[in-house]
């Protein structure tokens, strides 16, 4: 549970709350940009970030993102994280 997963920022969804849509291995998930918001949020569009429990914790380059994703897949952690995201979605919808 302590490992982040790479995602690419595709859209700013709520500038006031510093929220953005990220593409995580083909899954779209809203994340907070607060930890990496050192400048205008628009600068983060298209960037790769390391996402941990819904927060972009670090900006990384595309190569690092690819390598990290592969390492996570090797450990089965990528799948686990994507499942946790889906589970979180179900929890919001009140499906038990």
């Amino acid at each position: 549970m302590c490992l982040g997963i790479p995602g690419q920022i595709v859209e700013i969804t709520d500038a006031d709350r510093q929220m953005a849509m990220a593409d995580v291995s083909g899954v779209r998930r809203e994340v907070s940009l607060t930890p990496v918001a050192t400048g205008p949020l628009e600068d983060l569009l298209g960037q790769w970030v390391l996402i941990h429990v819904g927060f972009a914790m670090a900006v990384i380059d595309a190569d690092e993102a690819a390598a990290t994703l592969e390492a996570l897949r090797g450990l089965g952690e990528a799948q686990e994280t994507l499942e946790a995201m889906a589970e979180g979605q179900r929890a919001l919808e009140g499906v038990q």
Partner: protein
Amino acid sequence: MKYVEEFRDPVAARGVLAAITAVADRIGATPEAPVRIMEICGGHTHAIFRYGLDKMVHPGIEFIHGPGCPVCVLPMARVDECVELAERPEVIFCTFGDAMRVPGTRKSLLQAKADGADIRMVYSPLDALELARRNPDREIVFFGLGFETTTPSTAMSVQQAARDGVMNFSIFCNHITVPAPLRALLNDPHMMLDGFVGPGHVSMVIGTHPYDFIAEEFGKPIVVAGFEPLDLLHSVLMVLTQIAEGRAEVENQYARVVPEHGNPISIAAVDAVYEPRPSFEWRGLGEIDASGLRMRDAFRAWDAEAKFGVGYGAEVRAATPEPEGCACGAVMTGRMKPTACAQFGKGCTPEMPLGALMVSSEGACAAYWQYGGVRALEAAE
């Protein structure tokens, strides 16, 4: 060396392994008198087993699996308190999935959910905050669990709740820190450690300076590492090289992700919302000074301990002994291998865990079980 085929770059792995062997021989490491390196992070433990790194490196190197799995070090009493909170009719209890199967005295959260408690597995504390917005007549409690990588997420969620005036949201704070238990382990005279492989994603948040005391006060090398198998091998080589050269420093093998001073925005959010507790209880390690965090008074309205009078917020805290026959404490401090526990694979399996080290793939016992079935048999013979 069949494992090497699993690497993306087996040639590079062979090169690092050869270099490790050369240094290990030079400093006279043998299976009888091994160099003992603790990997702190549970993610590293998982990777070491997944790729069989412990079998691949020079036999004079022994990996000691550190306390860096937040689920594994969670005392049973805290699980009981979670169940108590979750069983309140007004509460929707939100947690990361990892915590669901940790055994409590009466039951795990998974069993409590089966018995009708409203427990939701969420991916992020922001999901819990959203649930609070959508369910204004319920109390949403989020189980704040984890090390420095995770702590900023709950701190920022509380700050957001405060800004938006969401009052039916609270955190049951069980956040813990990495440096404090390391100090405790280094102060333990039974602990014989020669060096550390430091956590990558924790350090991405806190930077490398919180480990300075390991080198300066205790004279031990520590190398912050990524969690690709090659990263880990490189880091082991860097630790060995420091030992061979008589150095003890904090080095950063994972500088491509870990800045020296960490993430200042996250550090500031954590400081604003949380403060150190005088001491906090760790499963298997006991009470450790200033190793856990609690919410500052300014955020009391979002503190589940204050709101519901549980945990350290309760007047009397029940002491709960560990389950009979469980050797989690000895395993966690490196005094015992998981396979030496009488319950390993018998009373304790990943399907029916008795101890917390069997619950998560980051726990040493689960890692042994998952990847070491053959090894367990070997050890038994």
